[in-house]
């Protein structure tokens, strides 16, 4: 690669400056010839073709490379001709760009591997440095920063001169610095200024670039680089604490989401619902069904799948909850240990039922665009999915609090749980309230399932993995106290995330459990225990 660097660089440069000496016809012939290499179905040949196409200067080059990267480039084994599969399912001839009405039968995809994918990214990066689209230029800059490919330097410097957007220009500068640092023959002064540029970037990528300094670089350059690495690392260390808190909040929000329904059924009603986890699972399966229907019927609505699934999951699981309450639990009030056994039985039945209906395998639930990817927040890498789950959890929590406080059902629920007989004699239909309360708890589990489908397996075993944790959260927080549940979920989440780097994921979990057991001895009624006469029977 590097051996050809100069040639490559010159050619790329010349392409962009439109000072080509080759004739258009000759280039077209070269381009067609290099395309033919794709038909060899051999990685080495494909790699050669990528290199050739990158310097061919053909207006079609970028399109071909992108198609290759996205597995939309095909070849006909008979004629050795290469076609591009367009996004609208039509085909065009890769050599000419002309549409092909009926593509030949037996087209095969041109296969790529990771090495090729890197080459393609690099080539496209170089080709799109001057793209009118700012997003693409940023991407190109990022990919060059990662690859530190010296061959792109001339093109990069050229692009840097033309760049108007300050943010992109900075990335270009950083990419340039990274390349300069990795070259042994860079002058010392340039090296030092590159170090300071990267020190300013101050992230993991900068460390990687700073560590790539060749061994024969000057001692003071090395020292400066080491210094910069140390500075960045200490900054990153600080960030990592914040990051741990964030991870803890995120884990806590998952725990809270899984436990919040339980806080209603167990905390408020005193019913131990071991089938709670299965409600979460059914909520996740509802999401799967919704997405499946959307995929086949209305693919453009895919981003709406979660908002559509939420009320559905709430209704489905809420209804199942009401059925369980009317069919089983109402006969068992006042016998909490028996409800535990009965609902455990229900959970086994639901699990195996789902396994029978949907099969034992995981089901695919995709992430809508706003749930995927990450963004950078003052050095913190925050994934969108996790962030929305935290926001969602808090919204659910506050809505629930408000509903309990200000709606008629909430008032009735509180009345019934505080004094059933009194409530009944005030004209509240207590059985009805019981059923609705249990339905509410189950429905909350269902919407938790929608959110959890984004980060976990959607399989019949989904619920089991949350049930014990959920009980711990509710018991730790203090039964009957929603705020306690909130605090305990976040406390457990953050504690877990700080223990994990110290002790490893397995021991961290064991420690948390042991601490919980000991804590319960100290405060048998949880963190925020209810006080007063009502507690001791």
């Amino acid at each position, binding site marked *: 690669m590097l051996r050809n660097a100069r040639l490559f660089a010159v050619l790329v440069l010349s392409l962009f400056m439109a000072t080509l000496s080759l004739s258009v016809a000759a280039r077209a012939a070269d381009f067609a010839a290099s395309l033919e290499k794709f038909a060899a179905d051999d*990685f080495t040949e494909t790699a050669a073709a990528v290199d050739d196409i990158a310097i061919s200067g053909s207006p079609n080059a970028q399109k071909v490379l992108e198609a290759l990267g996205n*597995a939309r480039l095909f070849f006909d084994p008979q004629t050795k001709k290469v076609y591009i599969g367009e996004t609208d399912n039509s085909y065009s001839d890769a050599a000419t760009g002309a549409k092909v009405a009926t593509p030949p039968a037996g087209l095969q995809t041109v*296969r790529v*591997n*990771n*090495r090729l*994918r*890197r080459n393609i990214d690099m080539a496209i990066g170089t080709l799109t440095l001057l793209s009118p689209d700012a997003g693409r230029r940023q991407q190109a800059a990022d990919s060059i920063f*990662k690859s530190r490919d010296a061959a792109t330097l001339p093109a990069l410097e050229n692009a840097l001169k033309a760049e108007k957007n300050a943010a992109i220009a900075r990335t270009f500068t950083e990419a340039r610095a990274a390349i300069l640092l990795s070259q042994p023959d860079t002058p010392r002064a340039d090296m030092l200024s590159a170090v300071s540029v990267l020190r300013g970037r101050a992230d*993991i*990528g900068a*460390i*990687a*670039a*700073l*560590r*790539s300094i060749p061994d024969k670089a000057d001692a003071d350059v090395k020292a400066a680089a080491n210094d910069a690495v140390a500075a960045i690392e200490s900054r*990153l260390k600080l960030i990592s604490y914040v*990051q*741990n808190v964030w*991870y803890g909040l*995120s*884990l806590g929000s*998952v725990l809270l989401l899984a436990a919040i329904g339980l806080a209603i059924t167990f905390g408020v009603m005193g019913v131990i619902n071991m089938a709670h986890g299965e409600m979460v699972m059914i909520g996740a399966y509802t999401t799967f069904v919704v997405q499946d229907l959307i995929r086949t019927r209305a693919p453009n609505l895919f981003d709406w799948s979660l908002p559509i699934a939420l009320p559905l999951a709430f209704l489905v699981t809420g209804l199942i909850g009401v059925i369980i309450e009317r069919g089983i639990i109402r006969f068992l009030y006042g016998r909490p240990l028996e409800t535990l056994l009965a609902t455990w039985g229900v959970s086994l039945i639901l699990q*195996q039922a789902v*396994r029978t209906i949907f*099969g*034992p*395998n*995981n*089901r*695919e*639930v*995709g*992430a809508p665009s706003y749930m*995927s*990817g*990450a963004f950078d927040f003052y050095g913190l*890498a925050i*994934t*969108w*999915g*996790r962030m929305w789950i935290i926001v969602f959890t808090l919204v659910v929590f506050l809505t629930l609090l408000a509903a309990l406080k200000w709606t008629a059902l909430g008032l009735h629920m509180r009345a019934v749980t505080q004094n059933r007989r009194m409530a009944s004699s005030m004209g509240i239909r207590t059985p009805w309230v019981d059923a609705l309360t249990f339905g509410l708890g189950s429905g909350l589990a269902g919407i938790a399932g929608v959110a959890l489908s984004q*980060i*976990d*397996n*959607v*399989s*019949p*075993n989904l619920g*089991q*993995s949350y049930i014990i944790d959920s009980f711990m959260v509710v018991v730790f927080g203090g039964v009957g106290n929603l705020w306690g549940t909130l605090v305990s979920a976040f406390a457990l989440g953050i504690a*877990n*995330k700080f223990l*994990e*780097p110290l002790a*490893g*994921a*397995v021991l961290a*979990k064991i420690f948390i459990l042991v601490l919980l057991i000991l804590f319960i001895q100290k405060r048998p009624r949880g963190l925020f225990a209810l006080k007063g006469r009502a507690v001791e029977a």
Partner: protein
Amino acid sequence: MSSIKIGRRGLLAGIIGGAMMMSAALPAFAQETIKVGILHSLSGTMAISETTLKDVMLMLIDEQNKKGGLLGKKLEAVVVDPASNWPLFAEKARELIAQQKVAAVFGCWTSVSRKSVLPVFKELNNILFYPVQYEGEESERNVFYTGAAPNQQAIPAVDYLMSKDGGEVKRWVLAGTDYVYPRTTNKILEAYLKAKGIADADIMINYTPFGQSDWQTIVSDIKKFGSAGKKTAVVSTINGDANVPFYKELANQGIKATDIPVVAFSVGEEELVGVDTSNLVGHLAAWNYFESVKSPINDEFIAKWQAFTKNPKRVTNDPMEAHVIGFNMWVKAVEKVGTTDPDKVIDALPGIEAPNLTGGISKMLPNHHITKPVMIGEIRKDGQFDVVWKTKDLVPGDAWSDYLDGSKDLEADWVGKKCGNFNTKTNKCGS
């Protein structure tokens, strides 16, 4: 008083009598057919993987019967459900052999299930075909291992990543679920990598509990580890269920296969059915079979399988292929000796050859492992794999790893030495 007594006695008698009746009534059918035991979990946590293997066995037996059965008799599948419960595996194995008098058993997925049925197979002298890649360090007379040993999966995968095509990886994350298979595989890989000159500082080992669903910290650690300026790869022995959240977190934190490739040993076509693979393109898996391999025998198999399951989207995977090979080998061995007597079949099996589904001929070795091609596949958008590398020849399975202190001198040879742990230093079996 007396009326109750009768009621109670009736109950107890019924329990024992019922069990006895079951045991007495069932062997009555055994005269007409040759019974084949299928010991895969159909409920519980392992049903996710094992149900498919039960189906493939039913298909194979069905086909064999269409061809006229075996030794002039029809084959009869005896399906039991050990319900992902390890002691129940032992109980069901005993039931299959002692009560149902099966000629051979095809089953188990996890190592612990195999370990729990082992004593039963040894005591009652029957044959188990075990179809899943495992940690090795075992060679038993009654077990035939048709899945990959570590040298048929882990080591070639690492070799590939060290090669130019694989990206010349210099830094390694060995991430696994905390149980015996990942522990052993990682021990072997660690020794192998060190033998290849990789420094301690360039190897990161991480274990997580079963069903780990929160991967934020670990993925960000991997990201950090990968930023040292050397090409980094992750070797994942993460157990089935934990993979989906792991891959989701990788995708969310923006780790692409071109940055830090992940090569997995427990992720195949079946596992990917539940994942949105568009962000995973390029991550790798090492297996001895991929559904995407083009060969006439594989095309035929896939067509038959999809017809049998009446599901045109049903995928195939590596352990299924292992059962296909194992079953065909067993059929050939039985035909060769003209009986299903376990002792004779066990002696006949080494040396038997059967075509694998990727176009080669696999052979049963004297150490009860088989020869297999090793392939590296990259995940495609459609949840299938592109084979990017393949061994030229079939690799013979090695029961005892050459990279572990305890086992490097051991050798399994059930033909010449008649033992599974022959020590080449002391020239003795066992010590």
